């Protein structure tokens, strides 16, 4: 970056030819070669790619755990896996899928796509972004290391006290769980801040609020949910550790604490969490759909309003996870009503997509197939959601395989299907290469069929009285046939994912080269080469329409007048996106990495001693000060 031919600060991209701007910007925004360069990079695309890859590795690991469980449950009283290991496995599966796959991968898609879609050069706090990834990586590795050490949490992913409390969960298993939660909270909160500020302040000039792509809206709502919901789980996991480590009495009924307090805190986070995963998927569908039907999305305003309404309502229904704990009837009725009410915004979204399809001409490419699979599956998950929202209905199916089926329909159908579609859709943008249409169809077919064959029978099992989280069942119970069927079907599902990953790896190297806009899409990320250069856009685009890339346009209107010798981007106003300043963006730094290491050191140590918070905070403070201390670079000028 400190090239010998650094040009004078007075030279703006206005005065230069495109090729020259490109040369300067590449040097200014690029990632240094070598190991330390890779560690120090703050390029949102590089970090997001790592994030996505890591999250998918966790998906594979979590999937293998699921297969292990299915193997165990294939026969009654099977002795393949003992109860202790099984409890660890399902806890790992749930925790891993929620905290290490679903939430991070959605955040990762946000940090990849949002800056490109709003037409800026990096996220708002790029170093925080790098920090977030390191924290996530270390937290996830910590959980898996504990599994390898036979010390993985074994109390379920919602870790109800007192089972997870000091008396009934000996050892460090639950502490590891709680601290892993802290890691993922920190990383998710960091992403949320970046996304909110990027969208509020770094949109391309002219991208007023009503021209923001639906996906970006979805990511903003998701980020606000993270900001409001994560403190709850942070409080919960911290107090749990305090109860276990220094003997506080938050969850001890004998000393004024309460076991249900944990459930309130957990689900006040846990329910919005579902929408934190689902809303980005809504955004992905809404942004992909227009491309494959040849017309803009129907009901943009309604969709955005539905997103915001869902975001707000999602905080008012946590109690529907607690319908059988014996709360007052009145309260339960209220939460039935609010849980049912969230079906209305969900309905609006579905109807808008159907209307878009209705008015358009569908082109059956792989992403559209996943969207169709999503609608079919998610509506079903929504229907079972309406069922469990009813208190009396819930008393029969709560904590059974019916609920297992329900939330897999919602999470896999509602979030993973769109995500896979999104990977097919944005893969060319991320790598410059297309994924295979043939393999994609196979992957979709196998995953769709495998999914339904695996999870639909679970509804029936639940109604037949099979509780969840049991490591085995007795032969005289009428569950063995369906369980065997499910276990075999899960292999089809796994095969589908295998095809998908084979396709990803193959296409990474050998896929057909994609141009800047292989799908003929209309959002801004397609206005730049694939994969985008480190600076994203040679010149910041100027937006004049909700669909900035209309096929009839031959030229892209852009803004110019930025410096090329330092990382500079445009800050615009919140509502109208009028340019306000030429803000600098921080350059690469190794300190987020050290700060993440120091933070991890403190968090892991604090599992063993409360003094870790005191002594461990010192290296954290040192790393943070070094991170923020000005280095006298052009980026510090103003």
């Amino acid at each position, binding site marked *: 970056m400190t090239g010998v031919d650094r040009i004078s600060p007075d030279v703006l991209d206005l005065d230069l030819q495109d090729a020259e701007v490109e040369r300067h910007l590449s040097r200014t925004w690029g990632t240094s070669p070598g190991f330390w360069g890779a560690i120090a990079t703050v390029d949102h695309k590089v970090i997001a790619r790592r994030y996505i890859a890591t999250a998918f590795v966790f998906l594979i690991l979590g999937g293998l755990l699921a297969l292990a469980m299915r193997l165990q449950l294939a026969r009654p009283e099977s002795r393949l896996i003992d109860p202790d290991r099984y409890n660890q496995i399902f806890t790992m599966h749930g925790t891993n899928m929620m905290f290490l796959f679903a939430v991070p991968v959605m955040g990762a898609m946000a940090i990849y796509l949002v800056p490109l879609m709003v037409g800026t050069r990096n996220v708002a706090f790029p170093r925080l972004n790098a920090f977030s990834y390191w924290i996530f990586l270390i937290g996830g590795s910590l959980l898996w290391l504990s599994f390898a050490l036979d010390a993985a949490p074994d109390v379920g992913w919602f870790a109800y006290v007192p089972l997870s409390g000091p008396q009934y969960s000996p050892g460090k298993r639950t502490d590891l769980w709680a601290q892993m939660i802290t890691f993922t909270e920190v990383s998710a909160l960091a992403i949320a801040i970046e996304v909110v500020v990027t969208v509020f302040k770094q949109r391309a000039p002219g991208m007023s609020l009503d021209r923001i792509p639906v996906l970006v809206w979805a990511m903003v709502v998701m980020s606000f949910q993270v900001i409001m919901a994560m403190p709850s789980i942070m409080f919960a996991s911290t107090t749990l550790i*305090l109860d276990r480590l220094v003997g506080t009495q938050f969850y001890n009924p004998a000393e004024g604490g309460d076991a249900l307090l944990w459930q309130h805190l957990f689900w006040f986070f846990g329910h919005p969490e579902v929408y934190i995963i689902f809303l980005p998927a809504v955004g992905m569908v809404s942004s992909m759909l227009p491309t494959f039907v040849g017309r803009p999305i129907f009901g943009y305003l309604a969709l955005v309003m539905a997103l915001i309404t869902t975001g707000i309502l999602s905080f008012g229904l946590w109690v529907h996870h607690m319908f059988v704990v014996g709360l007052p009837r009145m309260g339960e009725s209220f939460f039935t009503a609010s849980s049912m009410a969230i079906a209305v915004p969900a309905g609006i979204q579905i109807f808008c997509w159907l209307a878009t399809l209705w008015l358009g001409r569908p082109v059956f490419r792989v992403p559209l197939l996943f969207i169709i699979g999503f609608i079919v599956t998610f509506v079903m998950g929504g229907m079972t959601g309406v069922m469990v929202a009813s208190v009396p209905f819930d008393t029969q199916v709560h904590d059974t395989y019916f609920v297992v089926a329900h939330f897999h329909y919602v999470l896999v159908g509602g979030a993973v299907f769109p995500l896979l579609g999104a990977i097919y859709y944005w893969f060319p943008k991320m790598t410059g290469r297309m994924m295979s249409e043939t393999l994609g169809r196979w992957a979709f077919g196998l995953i769709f069929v495998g999914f339904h064959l695996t999870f639909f029978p679970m509804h029936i099992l639940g109604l037949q009285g099979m509780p969840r989280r049991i490591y085995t069942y007795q032969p005289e119970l009428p569950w063995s046939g369906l369980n065997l069927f499910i276990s075999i079907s899960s292999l089809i599902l796994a095969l589908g994912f295998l095809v998908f990953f084979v396709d990803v790896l193959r296409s990474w190297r050998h896929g057909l080269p994609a141009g800047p806009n292989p799908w003929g899409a209309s959002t801004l990320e397609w206005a730049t080469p694939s994969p985008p250069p480190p600076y994203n856009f040679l010149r910041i685009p100027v937006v004049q329409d909700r669909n900035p890339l209309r096929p009839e346009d031959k030229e892209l209107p852009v803004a110019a007048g930025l410096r090329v010798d330092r990382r500079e981007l445009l800050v615009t106003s919140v509502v109208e996106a009028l340019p306000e*300043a030429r803000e600098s963006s921080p350059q690469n730094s190794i300190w987020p990495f050290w700060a993440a290491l120091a933070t991890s050191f403190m968090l892991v140590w604090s599992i063993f001693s409360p003094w870790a918070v005191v002594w461990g905070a010192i290296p954290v403070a040192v790393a943070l000060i070094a991170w923020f*201390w000005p280095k006298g670079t052009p980026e510090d000028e103003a």
Partner: protein
Amino acid sequence: MKSRIVLDVSKLPLHGMGNASLTWWGTCAFMLIEGSGFALAIAVYFYLMSMAPEWPINAPAPDLWAGTWLTILLVASVIPNILVSSWAGKSDLRKVRIGLVVMSLMGILPLALRIFEFPALHILWDQNAYGSITWVLLGLHTTHILTDLIDTLVLACLMFSKHADNPRRYGDVEDNALYWNFVVVAWLPIYACIYWVPRL
């Protein structure tokens, strides 16, 4: 795709001040997170209170003097804080330096007083749920004073260094002042909870 220049931004300032600055928004988002955290902790306080037959549980109400003096001190610190912020807005380096030194003291003093607040609770964190939540509330807020104090100290050092005279630094000073105001405002409901609710 070919591009056509329709907008010249070369006349824009190199750094946005106030709500045109990214760090201002970052600070606000951070305050929203912390605010949610405080609100939740207070909600838990009332939840536990509603579960308990008596409140405080097996303890007298906390002694008032340390907490009240601290509250007065914190509220008083808002005045120099706002002054520092406005001086930073005017890029008055000399006054900002003085202000930051004053604000550093204004951060250290409450911490010193805080040491007396914990014994004034007349309960330990592990005695019962009342003790646990009051200690956590107090500890949570202490962390905020402490982090903002460190931030102020680092900024004070920066303002005496060669990096000082820079709109970016003045923006940082303003954001830091904003955050201190938040720390003070967040304390008021916590103060009411810890010291006055048990006396109701």
